[in-house]
């Protein structure tokens, strides 16, 4: 029997997030093949075989996998499939997407999120409206990605939204071609959510054919989650965000003027707070606006374009960095190394593309804040090392070298959550105006948004010797001029709080401690 194989060129294109139609078809066949093998295992065990067999249906594959797992566990097989009758179709520019809106299958929760109840007719109509509009966007501006979606996506499972976030989505390695997603806020979010999840599906199908990461590696910082992730999870995040980055790149190029030759003359933009981005035409003539200390404000270049530019700048760097972490890990197979190199090269090719300087600063700040927040949340400094450092501080001695902090106890899955990032999104969405995002809401945030690092650092530092406030500590790590604060914020926080608790009130503050640690420890 013939085994699956991919040419190196096809493998590289798949890794770069640009699989050919033939490659997508091969992955579909590979998943159908996998499904059939699982059914044969069930038959050997005397388990139930569905009739008719649809080896290409993702929910059927999910049932097969669950049935086999139940048989191995000596448990009763799951209830049979109940497929929804909602068929959604979207056609534009000669390309058609057909999906089943799945709101009845008893196993649909196994895609990883809480499924919605059965939909009302009006809700189905709303899903159809969103899909049609999202499909116009995808086929018009993201044609290659739309073709992959049309070939691979078969089922959408509506799930409950998380009150704390704007939109959730998920995929399962057992259901190639199925995406669970909460009701999208708009067609744009729907489109990017589908692209993101389909990347996970493609990678799941790829890893069922080829080992990319060897088991047993460390859990590391991922740019997309606040909890430590295994290397395989980091790979999934990077691969999914490769497609998101490409999407944002195109959107930014469409909505923001392309060539920026030197400083741009900018004028104040009196945008009212209640202005809706939905009313801004995408093709409006580009005009940048800015004067004064605010930096480039969002103007009629398209507010959504500024946000797309921010996302593009943020994620191109994050994907490249994640790829670097993976390549440096020593845990990739030969195929994994080839795959991740192609991912890295794709993202690295975007790094030199021009982005508005203020947007670039905010994007770099968002990534830096994420790293700092991750360290503050997940790393634990050895108490003995903290005591040693506090003692040295009290003696007026140089800081002794201490080992890197280790991972704290697992605190569970955590999506990125940052109030400062929400302010940045609001600023880019709504633009500069009186009472804009951040204005007077939290100390330091206005200064941060304006790029005044010194004022922001002073503001974030106040009272921090007695507070472990994650948001302010991570903000300080972004704007601080001290290397120790930026690179090892968990150490600065641990020493500062311990020194203050020990009664070293005088001269103890995060910036003073960070300066002290930077002066000796960081140069060791």
């Amino acid at each position, binding site marked *: *029997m013939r085994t*699956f*194989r991919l040419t*190196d060129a096809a493998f590289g294109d798949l890794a770069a997030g640009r699989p050919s139609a033939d490659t997508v078809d091969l992955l579909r066949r590979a998943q159908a093949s*996998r499904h*059939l093998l699982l059914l044969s295992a069930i038959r050997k065990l005397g388990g139930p075989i569905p009739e008719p067999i649809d080896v290409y249906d993702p929910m059927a594959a999910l049932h097969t996998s669950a049935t086999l797992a139940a048989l191995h566990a000596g448990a009763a097989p799951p209830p049979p499939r109940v497929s929804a009758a909602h068929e959604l179709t979207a056609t534009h520019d000669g390309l058609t997407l057909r999906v089943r809106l799945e709101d009845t299958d008893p196993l649909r929760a196994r895609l990883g999120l809480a499924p919605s109840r059965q939909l009302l007719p009006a809700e189905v109509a709303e899903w159809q409206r969103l899909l049609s509009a999202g499909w116009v966007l995808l086929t018009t501006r993201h044609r290659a990605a739309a073709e992959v979606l049309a070939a691979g996506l078969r089922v959408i499972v509506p799930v409950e939204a998380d009150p704390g976030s704007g939109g*959730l989505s998920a995929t399962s390695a057992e259901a190639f071609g199925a995406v669970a997603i909460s009701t999208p806020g708009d067609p744009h979010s729907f489109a990017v959510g589908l692209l993101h999840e389909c990347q996970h599906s493609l990678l799941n199908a790829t890893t069922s054919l*080829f080992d990319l990461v060897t088991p047993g590696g460390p859990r590391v910082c991922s740019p997309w*989650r606040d909890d430590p992730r295994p290397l395989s999870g980091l790979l999934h995040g990077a691969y999914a965000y490769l497609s998101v980055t490409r999407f944002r790149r195109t959107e930014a190029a469409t909505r923001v003027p392309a060539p920026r030759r030197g400083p741009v003359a900018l004028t104040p933009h009196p945008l009212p707070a209640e202005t809706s981005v939905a009313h801004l035409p995408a093709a409006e003539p580009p005009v940048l606006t800015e004067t004064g200390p605010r930096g480039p404000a969002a103007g009629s270049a398209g507010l959504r374009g500024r946000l797309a530019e921010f996302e593009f700048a943020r994620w191109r760097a994050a994907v490249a960095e994640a790829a670097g972490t993976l390549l440096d890990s020593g845990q990739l197979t030969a195929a994994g190394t*080839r795959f991740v190199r192609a991912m890295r090269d794709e993202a690295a090719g975007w790094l030199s593309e021009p982005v508005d300087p203020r947007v670039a600063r905010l994007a770099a700040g968002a990534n830096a804040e994420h790293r700092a927040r991750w360290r503050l949340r997940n790393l634990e400094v050895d108490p003995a090392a903290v005591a040693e450092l506090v003692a040295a501080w009290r003696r007026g001695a140089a800081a002794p070298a201490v080992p890197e902090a280790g991972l704290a106890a697992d605190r569970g899955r955590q999506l990125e959550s940052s109030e400062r990032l929400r302010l940045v999104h609001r600023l880019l969405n709504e633009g500069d105006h009186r009472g804009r995002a951040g204005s007077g809401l939290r100390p330091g945030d206005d200064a941060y948004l304006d790029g005044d690092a010194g004022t922001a650092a002073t503001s974030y530092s106040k009272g921090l010797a007695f507070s472990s406030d994650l948001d302010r500590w991570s903000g300080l790590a972004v704007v601080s001029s001290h290397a120790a604060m930026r690179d090892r914020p968990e150490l600065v926080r641990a020493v500062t709080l311990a020194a203050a608790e020990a009664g070293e009130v005088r001269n103890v503050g995060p910036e003073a401690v960070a300066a002290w640690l930077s002066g000796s420890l960081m140069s060791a």
Partner: protein
Amino acid sequence: MDRTAEDSAEEWLSPMVDVSGLSLDDLAAREDDSALTRSLRRLAAERDEPGEPIAGFNSAL
């Protein structure tokens, strides 16, 4: 666990067999095939080491 081809290979070879065009009866008739056995062994290993669910993309801005 089967591995893929070496670096710089012109083709990347998967240990998984393509049985997508076969029926369950066809598979049963070929159960002694070594490539098929390798594929089934790989699937069993996957079951023993299930991956983490991939969930949580926040698409809202």
